[in-house]
């Protein structure tokens, strides 16, 4: 069964460092998302991406965050200068369009980011 894969599963970084989280969505999916979950809290929407551009972003997704689909298969989330409060689990998700639209988002296993 096709799945969304994320790397790394866990990353520890120093405050102020740049971090890139990588995701390989399900092939043929056209909509891509990043969510985050701070420990013990709800899953929060960060950004959605379609047709090579951001379609929507939340208040959390400030200038420190960026997303990119560099090569047609990967979908990355970059945090330019990490802060302590960026420590969270980051989930990537994808969904299909048209005949591939099953109405649901398919989530990866998550990347846990720890900022020291």
């Amino acid at each position, binding site marked *: 069964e096709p799945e969304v894969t994320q790397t790394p599963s866990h990353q520890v970084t120093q405050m102020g460092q740049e971090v890139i989280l990588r995701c390989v969505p399900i092939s043929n999916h056209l909509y891509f998302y990043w969510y985050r979950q701070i420990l013990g809290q709800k899953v929060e*929407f960060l950004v959605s991406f379609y047709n090579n551009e951001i379609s*929507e972003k939340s208040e959390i997704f400030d200038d420190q965050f960026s997303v990119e689909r560099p090569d047609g298969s990967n979908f990355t989330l970059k945090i330019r200068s990490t802060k302590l409060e960026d420590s969270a689990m980051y*989930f990537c998700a994808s969904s299909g369009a048209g005949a591939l639209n*099953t*109405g649901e988002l398919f989530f990866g296993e998550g990347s846990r980011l720890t900022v020291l």
Partner: protein
Amino acid sequence: AQSVTQLDSQVPVFEEAPVELRCNYSSSVSVYLFWYVQYPNQGLQLLLKYLSGSTLVKGINGFEAEFNKSQTSFHLRKPSVHISDTAEYFCAVSEVNDKIIFGKGTRLHILP
């Protein structure tokens, strides 16, 4: 904009007893509704979804949910829980080809 309310942050229930996890949503348009489960230290797994059609939706692991449009609810039920059902359960709502919005989650504690 759509939103989701999960009224109970924690629900303790004895093993083999029935359980209902409550979810209410708000939206100005037709929506899709979901329940996701998150086991300790794991990712999000889809339990079930309502897109259209029958209002009673059956999912994995013996769970089911009923869509009630008049009450804007989508409560999750299981007739007999098992210790392995211990997890966080998230209700979620989305519009077609739009982001999913999650509720705050309900932690299900199974008591022996």
